[in-house]
């Protein structure tokens, strides 16, 4: 039942992606953005959006350097607090229910866990991963309701990825300092007192 639904969804996305690629080609060619063009010219079932590529920190990639078949640290599914490496990561996502290997591919750390069609998810498409557990939000995001797009309301849009706003390891949106309040206008004292 579930996989049937997903296949349907993916087909629909694929068609959408194809349409996107047709519509966006000319505008992108103008922008000389070779990287983005390359991505759009290869429409696959997953790459339906002209999303920005978000490189992982260079120091840590490729994951295979340590997690590869030669080095082969034992895969450890046990939830534990203090990892020997990756100390910058303090997992705070979904309470104690979630562990690294609910998202990261245990046998190939260069990828995220596959969709139900068996295709692994690349880091650049982490939104597909998020969509597996946050389906409603993912659909809203795809429709431009959750999250944010910039660019052109009637043309090429830039999508903000889930991970642009949410650290996957600690996804709660971070509070921020507000900009200064407006100056109070000159008003009679009794009106001012209301505020």
């Amino acid at each position, binding site marked *: 039942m579930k996989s049937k639904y997903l296949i349907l969804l993916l087909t629909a996305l694929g068609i959408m992606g194809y349409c996107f690629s047709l519509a966006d080609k000319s505008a992108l060619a103008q922008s000389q953005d070779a990287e983005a063009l390359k991505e759009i010219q290869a429409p696959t079932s997953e790459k339906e959006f002209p999303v920005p590529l978000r490189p992982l920190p260079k120091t840590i990639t490729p994951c295979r350097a340590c997690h590869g078949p030669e080095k082969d640290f034992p895969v450890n599914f046990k939830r534990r607090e203090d990892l020997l490496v990756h100390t910058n990561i303090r997992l705070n996502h979904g309470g104690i229910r979630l562990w690294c290997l609910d998202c990261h591919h245990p046998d190939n750390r260069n990828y995220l866990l596959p969709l139900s069609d068996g295709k692994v998810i690349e880091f650049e498409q982490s939104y597909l991963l998020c969509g597996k557990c946050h389906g409603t939000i993912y659909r809203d995001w795809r429709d431009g309701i959750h999250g944010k797009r910039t660019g052109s309301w009637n043309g090429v849009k830039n999508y903000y990825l889930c991970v642009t706003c949410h650290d996957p390891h600690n996804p709660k949106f971070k*509070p921020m300092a507000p*900009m200064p309040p407006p100056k109070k*206008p000159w008003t009679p004292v009794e009106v001012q007192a209301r505020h």
Partner: protein
Amino acid sequence: MRHKKSSESGSSPGNRPPTDLENSSIKKTNSELLDRRTFMAGAASVLGMFAVSSCSWQEFIQNNFQRMTKEEIEQTVERLRKEYKEKYGKDFVVGTEGPLEATLFGYALDIQRCIGCRKCVYACVEENNQSRDPQIQYIRVLRFKDGDMDLEHSTIYYDPEEVPEDGYYYMPVQCQHCANAPCTKVCPVRATWTERDGIVVVDYNWCIGCRYCMAACPYMGRWFNFAEPVIPAESINTVTHYLGNRPRMKNVVEKCTFCIQRVRVGKYPACVEVCPVGARKFGNLLDPDSEISKIIRNKRVFRLKSELNTQPKFYYFFAT
């Protein structure tokens, strides 16, 4: 005028008695529908206006933007560019792009997502060349206690270390671009009107500064230049539109135009682009696939003071 709250006249900053000129022109235009240009020209010669006025004679005889010929528009744009160059030492673009076909602009704001950071307020000020002193800000961010919808209990002066604050929610308010806009109806000289794409605009050169529109607006979406606007030359935005963010002068009313200079060339308004939480949505109401249409179709939406039948094209929505 019906919507005018008694407190409003008291709280508007610096209630300045109207000058003789404004006073008489209002009465005249109301009572005998005298053509403004004839009247102004007459008044000018009688009062010796040229002697005391800083404005050029071209500006003085300039027509309402809606009635200008292509040639007149070009001349006006040239004159304005010269004027701005003199004042700010920069080359301006003064666009006059018209509405796009089959376009009706709408706006939606996710009230659950907004964190009250006011980034939109300042992006708007910079994009739209609002006066820094006296301060004009098209967007007011209201803070409410959770569960309280009473505008009278809200504040715009909150200033905590960090937002969002527990127990509060935020509601930015700006011009609602009403489909049935009371402000445009009360203008005695038709200096403000609704464009075909739904944007409510002001012809600053035609505005006589009577502020009827401000009294008629139930959303406090209009602002008056009580003094000569002050904008540092280094922060002026030189990409402007005649009906939008070109520099304004003293004694005229201004307002949000959905960033007409941006949206008419396909860009999102500045407030949409800057919102860090993505609470602000903008698009074409006539396109069923636009973000805004999907929101109106699929989410719970409401409009401010809908009981007044102003029919805003600015929707607030709940994402969940």
